[in-house]
């Protein structure tokens, strides 16, 4: 056993940074807090790389397969005799991979933000929140048990809330942050219920125990518990609900586009590369349970992923806010990953989908972060989010243009860039599992290429727009992260994922299946071609096309009215039909009853005041009749 206790430091450093910057940040120069945050994260990144190298290579000589290692664990809270919440660090292929993704992207975003956030109010607050987020996310991926994961799950949620609402004076940002938090919170309720069911039936929260093929979860007796599905299936579906919320899967995706109200680096870090893939990570983490214990649940995962990816891709084609396009693209890509997990089996080559999903997660983190950071640089230059305000920017922003192009090609899945490799594996896995899903993915691949290049051309080509001030390239502190990420986006595809990150820890052989890869590349090229035709030079084609699709276009443009549905549910049903009646009921019926009691006492008091008439003889009457009544009652009526 190798000692990985130091991995504890990886989340701990950002946490201490958060406390430090949070408490003392307002006293130091803004730039100092940025530098402190960045350097702290750099250390964490270095530690992560060391861990990865040690885990995958240096400590792994002569052994086949990767075991999961509990680097360290303490008891945080005793719940029942069996259930204990521990806090610890679990080292296994996916967590190490996530460490790399998170620290890399986070470090890039930190560096980038030093430039991007310059002159903003609350500079130190931004870095404090970034550190908080990094801490939570790292804690999440290192979780040794599902409850620890839930804890950090909530923490990333709140960091996301804080960062989306960073510009808290902007009502739209506040609304978006609320929406993000509440929607994911709702999903987390599912997660929690899932945890409750799962932990009650298995008697443990621990991942190692849960995912062990001989563990209590997988060997749990099946049989329909409710609506024809087993307890385990139900619990996993509930848990997946949490994942779907965090990963913005249909229909819990509504918060993600709005979350773009946050500063762009935040979108890059949280809403593209790391937090939103937490759902994928969650499913991957429990993958053996899904695959071996409850394939039904996995089917749900696959379909939700597939539908989300198509749904998002269609919407992405119609949006004009560049960050929203990217947001829908993110949703679509995460759909891919979910689908990959959903179509996967367990062990060996069956686990191709698992590997592909994680692979895509990895590559996606690189190119999507790059896209967002690039978008940030563009927004920084033109002070607008809307692609209608842009055009012809390639002259002004050469570095941004180049890196953005690389990212677009990558996401479109053109070989030999990384996106191609990971996407191809997913296609293969889907092909082996379900042809319908597979064809959806083909369609999405084309759409992806189309909307990305629509975006690209609208920004950098198209009509030459006049700008108030000449846009100029971002400073190096911002462009260097772009270049680094571009490097990652290009070369990440060559990593031997099938040897490193697999469903059962054992490496397997995988080859490129040209019969699937070539059509997919062709479809992508078709999409690119379409986009080129429509958007490279300003022309009337897009409008004509929109006209052809008619209502379809309108629906997609309005995001299939999902926001309106949610608004209806929250405003109309929850506010108008539950909360207001409840409040009214409380004030008028429940409280009214209490007041009524008081008033009745008062009225009775008024009613009987006539007895005290002040007349002596009436007193006599009452006296005598009282006596006689007592006699009547107790001498004649009472049975004794």
């Amino acid at each position: 056993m190798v000692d990985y206790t130091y991995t504890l430091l990886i989340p701990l450093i950002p946490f201490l940074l958060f406390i430090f910057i949070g408490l003392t940040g307002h006293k130091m120069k803004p730039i100092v807090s940025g530098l402190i945050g960045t350097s702290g994260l750099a250390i964490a990144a270095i530690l992560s790389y060391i861990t990865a190298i040690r885990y995958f290579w240096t400590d792994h000589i002569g052994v086949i397969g990767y075991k999961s290692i509990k680097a360290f664990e303490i008891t945080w809270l005793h719940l029942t005799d069996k259930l204990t919440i521990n806090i610890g660090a679990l080292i296994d292929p996916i967590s190490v991979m996530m460490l790399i993704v998170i620290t890399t992207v986070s470090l890039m975003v930190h560096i980038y933000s030093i430039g991007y956030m310059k002159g903003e109010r609350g500079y130190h607050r931004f870095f404090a929140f970034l550190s908080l987020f990094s801490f939570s996310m790292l804690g999440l991926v290192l979780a040794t048990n599902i409850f620890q994961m839930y804890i950090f799950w909530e923490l990333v949620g709140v960091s996301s809330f804080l960062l989306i609402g960073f510009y808290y004076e902007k009502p739209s940002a506040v609304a978006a942050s609320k929406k993000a938090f509440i929607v994911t919170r709702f999903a987390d309720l599912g997660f929690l219920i899932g945890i409750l069911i799962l932990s009650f039936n298995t008697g443990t929260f621990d991942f190692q125990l849960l995912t062990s093929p001989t563990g209590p979860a997988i060997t749990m007796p099946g049989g329909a518990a409710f609506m024809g599905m087993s307890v385990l299936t139900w619990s996993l579906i509930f848990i997946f609900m949490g994942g779907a919320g965090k990963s913005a899967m249909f229909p819990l995706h509504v918060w993600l586009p709005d979350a773009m109200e946050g500063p762009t680096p935040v979108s890059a870090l949280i809403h593209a590369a790391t937090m939103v893939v937490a759902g994928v990570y969650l499913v991957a983490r429990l993958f053996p349970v899904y695959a071996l214990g409850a394939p039904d649940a996995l089917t749900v995962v696959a379909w939700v992923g597939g539908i989300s990816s198509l749904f998002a891709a269609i919407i992405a084609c119609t949006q004009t806010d560049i960050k929203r396009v990217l947001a829908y693209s993110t949703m679509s890509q995460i759909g891919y990953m979910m689908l990959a997990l959903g179509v996967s089996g367990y062990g060996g080559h069956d686990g191709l989908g698992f590997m592909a999903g994680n692979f895509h997660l990895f590559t996606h983190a690189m190119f999507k972060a790059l896209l967002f950071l690039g978008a940030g640089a563009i927004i920084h230059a033109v002070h607008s989010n809307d692609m209608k305000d842009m055009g012809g920017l390639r002259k002004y922003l050469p570095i941004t243009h180049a890196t953005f192009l690389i990212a677009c090609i990558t996401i479109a899945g053109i070989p030999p860039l990384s996106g191609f490799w990971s996407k191809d594996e997913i296609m293969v896995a889907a092909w082996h599992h379900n042809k319908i899903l597979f064809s959806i993915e083909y369609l999405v691949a084309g759409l992806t290429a189309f909307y990305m290049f629509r975006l690209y051309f609208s920004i950098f080509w198209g009509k030459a727009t006049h700008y108030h001030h000449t846009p100029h390239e971002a400073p190096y502190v911002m462009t260097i992260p772009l270049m680094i990420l571009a490097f990652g986006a290009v070369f990440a595809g060559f990593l031997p994922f099938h040897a490193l990150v697999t469903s059962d820890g054992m490496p397997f052989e995988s080859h490129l299946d040209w019969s699937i890869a070539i059509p997919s590349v062709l479809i992508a090229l078709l999409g690119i071609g379409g986009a080129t035709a429509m958007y490279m030079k300003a022309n009337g084609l897009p409008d004509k096309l929109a006209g052809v699709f008619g209502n379809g276009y309108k629906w997609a443009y309005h995001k299939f009215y999902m926001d309106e549905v949610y608004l209806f549910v929250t405003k109309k049903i929850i506010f108008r039909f539950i909360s207001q009646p409840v409040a009214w009921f409380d004030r008028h019926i429940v409280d009214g009853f209490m007041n009524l009691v008081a008033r009745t006492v008062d009225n009775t008091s008024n009613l009987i005041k006539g007895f005290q008439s002040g007349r002596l003889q009436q007193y006599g009457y009452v006296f005598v009749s009282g006596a006689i009544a007592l006699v009547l009652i107790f001498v004649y009526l009472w049975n004794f």
Partner: protein
Amino acid sequence: MSIYDFLTMRHELILTALVLLVLIIDLNLKQSQKHRIIPIAIGLFFIHTVVGFLPAQTGVLFGGMYHTDGLTILMKNILNVGVLIILFQSTTWLNKEENGEKISEFFILLLSTLVGMNFMISSGDFLMLYLGLELATIPMAALAAYTHHQTRSAEAGIKLILSSALSSGILLFGLSLIYGSTGSIYFDTVGALYSNTPMQVLAFIFFFTGMAFKISLVPFHLWTADVYEGSPVNVTSYFSVISKGASAFILIMVMYTVFHSIAYLWKDIVYLIAVMTMTIGNLFALRQKNMKRFLAFSSIAQAGFIMLGIIGGNKIGMTATVYFVLVYIFSNLGAFGVISAISAKTGKESMDDYDGLYATNPKLSLLMTLSVFSLAGIPPVAGFFGKFFLFTSAASGGYYWLVFIAVLNATISLYYYLLVVKAMFINKNDEPIAFFNSDTMTKIGLFACALGIFVIGFWSQVYEFIDAVTFAIVN
């Protein structure tokens, strides 16, 4: 029977002597010096009170008509203390010009009624009981009509004398039937012979109504409010505290010793009466604005609570009743003391006049607050303990629902007690009662109440002392 045996009657004898002494001294005072009788009378009564606590002879006199034991002596002492406080509190009022000539009458009448109560407490037969009862009632009517230039006072007097005459007529009719059916008026003989024949039940009910009248239980309470309101404040406090307390003492003793054989029956009666008394008393108290009238109804409600001590029929019940009366004396005298101090200085008796009192007279307000809290049964003051023990005794008889009704009534009563607190502390007033200093005697009287309200509850010896002399229903 030697002459020394008369020492058994020490309380009554000394009191009678005191009455005569006051009369004689008053005769020898000049017109302008009449007020000097106040310190003399109070001083004498103080001595009497102190002497009352000295070890006393117990025994039976006049062939069983009169008896004393630890309990009766204790009861008399409790009453003495109460009266002493009332006397202290009434000095301001008595010193007023208008009372010039008749100050001594106040003492004579008041102490005469006290003699009557003492005889009642010590009575061993119905004749003595009746004698004491009338002695305690008739001078009271004169006291009620004390300020004879006030129509209200006269009205109070006539209402009291006529209603009490009616009630004692009915009571006497009951007594005559008891005598007719048992052939005796001695408690022990009657108690041994009593059963539930209709005539005896009827006789008991008639007797009970007479006592209920004295304690002002519903529906025999109607005189109470009017008489309380019309009488001078200190007389009212005497009515509401001493007279009521003594009657409660006697009622519980008679119920426990004489009518024990029909206890199952009178428990039902008491149940009914208690519920009505608490409820009606509270309902009326809610709407009162005159402080005296307000306390009159509150004291009716309190009488209802006392019934809970009687209904238990056990030792706790009697101890709790005596204890409660003791606590009640201090609490109610605290409240009446404040009212009398204010009334004597300003003549204001309405609750509205009390608005903003705390700002000008914080000490009086605090005493008033303590008193009403004690009356409401709020810890840590004594009223809480009194009420708790009373309800405990009822619960020990299994009367949980009755206890529940009683506690709910206590909650209602808290409402109007809080109204007083609210008036003093919270309500704003443009012309609050100005600050004033009471004379020393009044202050002593008020302070004694405050002390009693605090000490009696916490000092468990008081309860234990009472418990040592009480008894359960005879079986």
